[in-house]
């Protein structure tokens, strides 16, 4: 229904309305396409900041001087015949007297009269709204850009309907190009099974107990890529303090997390090495100190002793200490050599051959103790290893097994190898004295730690062996029962 349909305005009223319009920052214009006659209302001048007569009132002046050149096309389209069905309204920029170009909403109408086609229109200044819109669009764009660049998505769950909404960035992380709507359980299915209970509980606690969460979990995307994500959520409360919505961010932190994890494993490795070095420094200092202390002690006694036979005896001890000092220095050299041997590189070596060398070197001990040695290297006959290490490892374990044999029975030593995936294991099993792991487990591989009253226990063998094995990335596990025997499982590679 048109405004004028039901009402008739008197001439008086019309002028009132015109007055009203003129004072409302609305410009009205009229243009006769045939006569080229143009009429501008007082408001038209006012919205542009001019006074009547200051500018030429013509279509060409409007088109050439007031209308911003990029908006000409837009404006012209609104003047087309309704037959074309074009828009009636356009947002255009016009040059104002005082504020440069400003945004206006222009509405154009066309009427065919007896005097030809007459166009008339309204101009309203919408600059403030337009600027605000542009700014909003800019900040929205920025927010989207930030999210995209930082790979942070935004999501929310309505606590009543349990409807789940994702920002485009969340879909990007899910690698769901079609942006299908997911339910909460469906979304949880994307997390790696191990983390599902954790995320379920976090979501439930956020919904029911208003508990925020911030977790880092593994996630499988629609394209089957496994990545680390950070999932952070805060509950949005209603006026009663109940959780209305849970809203959160979802972030791909795969790179950072993986770097962090590899850093952590490097730290652990360094930590282990550091501990071993510290232990080593402590032992060396302790042993050198005790030899040096004894030497000083004996030299002082030597000086204080009057008896020749005492002096001879003391001198014997000084010689022993001198020997011990040399032995300790020799052990130090061996430890330093561990690193040097590695640099020579690994070779494909046969267990059978290396073991034959070791066995012949220890033949005297083996026959003296009547030890029965059974070997089976068929499961893993060869290994890529530092040859000198393998020999040293086999020799140390065999020496230990013979040295710590049980006095009441014939020593039986079983040596086998096996393969598990890419790893090769060496097993040494004996029926010897056994070790009380409860008491000595921690010190078993320490330097100069001995557990049996055995004069040839030096406490260097297992220390060296462990260093060699670990230097090549392996490890040693031990099971033992006192008076029954010991089983060493050595993961070589």
């Amino acid at each position, binding site marked *: 229904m048109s405004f004028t349909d039901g009402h008739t305005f008197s001439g008086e009223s019309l002028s009132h309305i015109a007055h009203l319009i003129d004072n409302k920052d609305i410009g009205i214009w009229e243009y006769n396409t045939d006569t080229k006659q143009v009429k501008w209302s007082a408001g038209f001048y006012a919205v542009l900041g001019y006074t009547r007569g200051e500018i030429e009132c013509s279509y060409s002046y409007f088109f050439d001087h007031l209308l911003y050149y990029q908006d000409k096309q837009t404006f012209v389209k609104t003047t087309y015949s309704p037959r074309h069905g074009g828009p009636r309204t356009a947002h255009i920029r016009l040059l104002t007297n005082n504020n440069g170009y400003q945004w206006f909403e222009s509405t154009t109408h066309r009427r065919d009269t007896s005097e030809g086609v007459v166009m008339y229109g309204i101009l309203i200044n919408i600059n403030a709204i337009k600027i605000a819109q542009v700014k909003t669009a800019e900040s929205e764009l920025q927010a989207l850009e930030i999210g995209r660049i930082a790979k942070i998505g935004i999501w929310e769950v309505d606590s009543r309907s349990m409807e789940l909404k994702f920002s485009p960035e969340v879909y990007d992380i899910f690698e769901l190009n079609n942006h299908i709507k997911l339910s909460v359980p469906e979304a949880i299915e994307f997390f790696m099974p191990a983390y599902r209970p954790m995320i379920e509980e976090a979501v439930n606690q956020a919904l029911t107990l208003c508990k925020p969460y911030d977790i880092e979990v593994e996630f499988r995307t629609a394209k089957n890529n496994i990545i680390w994500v950070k999932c952070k959520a805060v509950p949005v409360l209603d006026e009663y303090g109940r959780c209305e919505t849970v809203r959160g961010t979802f972030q791909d932190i795969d790179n950072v997390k993986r770097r962090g994890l590899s850093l952590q494993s490097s730290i652990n490795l360094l930590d282990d090495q550091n501990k071993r070095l510290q232990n080593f420094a*402590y032992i060396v200092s302790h042993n050198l100190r005790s030899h040096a*202390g004894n030497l000083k002690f004996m030299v002082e006694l030597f000086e204080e002793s009057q008896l020749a036979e005492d002096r001879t005896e003391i001198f014997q*001890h000084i010689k022993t200490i001198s020997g011990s000092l040399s032995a300790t220095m020799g052990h130090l050299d061996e430890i330093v050599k561990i690193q040097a041997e590695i640099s020579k590189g690994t070779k494909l070596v046969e267990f059978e051959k290396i073991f034959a060398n070791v066995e012949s070197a220890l033949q005297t001990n083996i026959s003296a103790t009547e030890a029965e040695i059974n070997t089976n290297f068929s499961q893993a006959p060869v290994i890529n290893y530092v040859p000198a290490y393998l020999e040293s490892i086999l020799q140390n374990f065999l020496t230990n097994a013979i040295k710590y044999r049980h006095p009441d029975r014939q020593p039986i030593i079983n040596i086998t190898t096996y393969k598990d995936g890419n790893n090769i294991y060496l097993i040494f099993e004996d029926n010897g004295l056994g070790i009380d792991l409860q008491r000595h487990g921690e010190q078993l591989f320490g330097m100069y730690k001995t557990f049996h009253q055995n004069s040839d226990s030096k406490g260097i063998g297992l220390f060296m062996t462990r260093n060699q094995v670990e230097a090549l990335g392996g490890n040693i596990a031990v099971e033992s029962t006192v008076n029954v025997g010991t089983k060493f499982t050595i993961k070589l590679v």
Partner: protein
Amino acid sequence: MSSETKFVTAGIVDDDKIFTYGFRKLTGIKGLFNEILDFSNGQEAINYLTDPINSQHLPDVLFVDINMPIMDGWEFNDAFGEIKSQLPKPIKLYNISSSIDLEDINRAKKNPLVADYLLKPLDESYLTEIFHNLQHPGDQLKYN
């Protein structure tokens, strides 16, 4: 000074034969301690202390090394704590070691059973002081 002079027996618990030999020799030359018993590890010492045959022949002071096979000094300290109340006479316990590790030193010093932690080689004048305190128990206050 008290006129009473006690007969003082010292026990040394250490697997280091040279150190034990030196200890015997030095105390012999200096006239410290009237008798020396030696044990090559903690277990031997505990066996001796708990054997009723030896109840009349227990040491007055024990010097116990930390690093030993079979039963080390720490384990000996614990075992000694358990039998202490059943012993017919008080025995003063010292830990001795070449270790200058603060962890070891504090561990020994924190233990109320341990009178002190002595670094090897042992300080002769400190040994003399320990001996005199045991020889003249009445003078204890002077040193404490």
